[in-house]
């Protein structure tokens, strides 16, 4: 089956030589089977040229997988007519990852903490918690259908 991923990579260097930035955008259909491939592709671009980056690689893989899963399953309800957009801004010091779905959005402040003893036996509800623990900053747009995660490079 041909891949339905639309990938675009733009590299730019600041005119004053202060550093370079890369913008990676990617659009994927609402299919959970696509998630691993997208995580692999985006991680490869985020860490291109970085040698000993194992720690940030793991964090990137987990939070991107989490955000894509939320977007596809909860946001777009696995409706294959709907898309998920990924935008990664790669600077010298930070990586900013934005994942946007076409769903109605949700209120992130209403998601309960999953680590209370009575919650431990629950199968769901750890995704957003893990994202918050593994990145340096998390923001949502007002509608709640777009998450922006910032990771500082080591």
């Amino acid at each position, binding site marked *: 089956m041909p891949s339905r991923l639309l990938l675009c990579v733009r590299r730019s260097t600041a005119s004053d030589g202060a550093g370079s930035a890369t913008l990676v955008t990617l659009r994927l259909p609402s299919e959970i089977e696509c998630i*691993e491939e997208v995580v692999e592709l985006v991680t490869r671009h985020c860490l291109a040229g970085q040698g000993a980056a194992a720690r940030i690689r*793991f964090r990137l893989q987990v939070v991107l997988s*989490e955000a894509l*899963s939320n977007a596809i399953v909860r946001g777009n309800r696995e409706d294959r007519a709907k898309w998920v957009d990924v935008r990664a801004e790669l600077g010298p010091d930070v990586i900013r990852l934005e994942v946007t779905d076409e769903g109605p959005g949700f209120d992130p402040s209403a998601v309960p903490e999953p*680590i209370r003893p009575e919650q*431990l036996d629950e199968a769901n509800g750890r995704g957003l918690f893990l994202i918050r623990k593994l990145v340096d900053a998390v923001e949502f747009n007002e509608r709640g259908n777009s998450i922006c995660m910032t990771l500082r490079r080591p």
Partner: protein
Amino acid sequence: MGFHQIKDASGVAVVQVEGQLVVGNRQELKDLVQAALDRGERRLLIDFSRTGYIDSSGLGALVSMSKKIREAGGELRLSGLNEDLRSLFELTKLDTLFAIAETPKQALASF
């Protein structure tokens, strides 16, 4: 990539997670464990020595499998978590829910 199931000489059903345990394949692992329970297996080990990353759906699948195994009167052990993988269990406090051994050998010895 996927799940590799073997039966240890001591009679423990061992499942090795090769690659990722994520929303896209967690059902496959749950089905494997259910099939093992249906066959009468009661001692199960899931080994992560060859695992890249786990997402929250993968963690959730482990929680529900653990419950099923307990209800069937069985025991589940986990092994082979590297520092990154272990941190996921610690952050979510799931290290308090599972019996986690450093290596598969240690896990097998603990049954």
